[in-house]
């Protein structure tokens, strides 16, 4: 009996087992699916899900949820291109501004949830609308003079080309995974996050600044969504409207498939990495098998259900 294998660690292992199972099944049914190039492509696509899921996970850890991800992401992407005007010299400021927008939106979410007591669902849903309205309004529906700009060349080269043959998105993802893991397991902040997630009243009475932690987490979620937006424009060159829409439900699914408890207080980012990978692998595989859209939706839902039944169940009531 190994005491180190806590239920949380076990769920991370399950998440990897599922990812491996999906990939092997894919390899059997669709030759070439598990080749390194294919895997790498799936990893790159999964990285984008992984970024937003990182933020989503942080707020889920304290029993919250972030529904503002789509337009934080989209807004940051628009800010990046409209302020950089495609010029490399402006890239640093543009990056800072885009991340700043994400941080600001997340901060506002956190303040609303922690200080004003607005339920997370409402606060972040409202924020999503606010950012959508601002993005559309200020950019005049993305037709403003600077709205046609591209992400500066260095950023695009990085994300299209990569570093030493390794796609940049993957490198950044590895960085994010390291950061998240260190943050959550080795720092005092991480300890406080889990404490707040498990029992916020007890955490408060133990001297944890519950509100501060909550605000910090929502802010980080905003930053991660903005990061995803930046990567996506680096990858595609230009922002589009609705860029973030696919990531709302997908980020939640990736978090739970990764073994994070939706009730808060439990889970590791390494599991979320596997969760993102699993979801993207399933989608890619179904597309490769030319399953029609209706079938894909049904199978996707069923796969999530099966995973939930395998290790996403609440405690029994007795």
């Amino acid at each position, binding site marked *: 009996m190994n005491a180190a294998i806590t239920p949380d660690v076990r769920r991370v292992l399950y998440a990897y087992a599922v990812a491996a199972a999906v990939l092997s099944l894919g390899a059997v049914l669709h030759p070439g699916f598990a080749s390194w190039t294919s895997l790498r492509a799936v990893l790159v696509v999964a990285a984008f899900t992984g970024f937003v899921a990182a933020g989503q996970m942080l707020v889920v850890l304290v029993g919250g949820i972030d529904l503002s991800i789509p337009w934080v992401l989209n807004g940051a992407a628009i800010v990046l291109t409209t302020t950089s005007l495609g010029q490399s010299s402006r890239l640093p400021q543009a990056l800072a501004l885009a991340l700043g927008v994400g941080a600001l939106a997340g901060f506002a979410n956190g303040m*609303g949830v922690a200080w*004003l007591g607005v*339920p997370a669902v409402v606060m972040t849903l*409202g924020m999503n609308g606010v950012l959508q309205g601002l993005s559309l309004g200020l950019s005049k529906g993305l037709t403003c003079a600077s709205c046609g700009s591209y992400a500066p060349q260095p950023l695009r080269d990085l994300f299209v080309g990569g570093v030493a043959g390794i796609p940049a998105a993957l490198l950044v993802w590895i960085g994010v995974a390291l950061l998240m893991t260190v943050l959550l397991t080795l720092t005092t902040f991480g300890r406080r996050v889990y404490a707040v997630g498990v029992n916020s009243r007890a955490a408060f009475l133990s001297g944890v600044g519950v509100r501060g932690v909550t605000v910090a987490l929502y802010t980080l979620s905003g930053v991660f969504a903005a990061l995803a937006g930046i990567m996506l424009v680096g990858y595609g060159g230009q922002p589009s409207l609705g860029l973030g829409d696919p990531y709302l439900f997908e980020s939640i699914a990736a978090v739970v498939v990764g073994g994070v408890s939706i009730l808060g207080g439990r889970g590791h980012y390494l599991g979320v990495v596997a969760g993102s990978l699993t979801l993207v692998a399933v989608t890619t595989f179904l597309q490769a098998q030319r399953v029609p859209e*209706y079938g894909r*939706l049904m199978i996707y839902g069923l796969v999530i259900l099966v995973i939930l039944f395998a290790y996403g169940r609440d*405690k029994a*009531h007795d």
Partner: protein
Amino acid sequence: MRDLIGRLVPTQAGLGYIVLVATAAAYLIVYTSSLGRFPTSFDYLSILNTMLPLVFVAIGQSLVVLTGGIDLSVGGIVSLCVAVTATTVTGTGIAPFGWLIVVLVLGAACGAINGVIVAAGRIAPILATLATLSIFTGLALWVLPVPGGSIPSVVRNVLSNPNVPTGLIWLGVAIGGWLVLRRTRFGMRIYAVGSDETSARAVGVPAGRVKLGVYALSGLCGALASVFYVSTTTAGDANAGAPFILTSIASVVVGGVAFTGGRGSALGAVAGAVALTLVIDVLFFAGIDPLYQSLFQGLFLVVAVLLGTVATLVARRRRAAA
């Protein structure tokens, strides 16, 4: 004295009605100042008919939220039932009504599946219904790959007649249904489960069956919404349900139903749904730049709920002071 204050100070549960009154007043003001006359029966009737589907979905959603759950799959259930209604409900005389019953049973069955997964499978509602949302949406696309289908005019005349406010009857039936439900033991148990499931089980409340019940009812409400949707639009669309996910949740919170369960009422959710429908009109007649509309809708949501929080705080302060 304590009672009097308790009754006068608005509580979170009364939020929906206050927001509704405020929104309705805003509507009348912007409408009259923009058109120089009061709204006509056409306006009232079209508001009534467009809001009915949301009202039904919101009632179903509120039942689920009252037990402390959430139903994201309403989007899928509405899509599926819209697809099935538009493709199967045909014929004349009594036959289409038979098919309508089939659709209602289908909706309830989809909801019951959610209920089983949540109650027996012990899977968090948000996740269970996230998965079934995908499944039901897939089914809807399979049933109705291209928008279309139709609905016989007999059905239309009975459900959402564009010239006669038949919708009022159904709104009344929906509200009456809730008032009756509230007065059943099942109704009391919904609150019990939402308030504290473990305790509810301990005092003998069959929490599993209650949950199964509310999800099935939510599915049934989704089916009812679909029927009205098809009736007002006269045809079906497999993507019809998607907007209802977030709007039904918004209705429920604006209606003052607590997300933690146990507090609020379906009537509040009805008020919330009506208010959200009216907000569209307020923005329209206020001449807000369409590009900025979601900004105002987002603010409306947050501010409405914030008012509720403040009201609750004030009420608690005053109660404490008394």
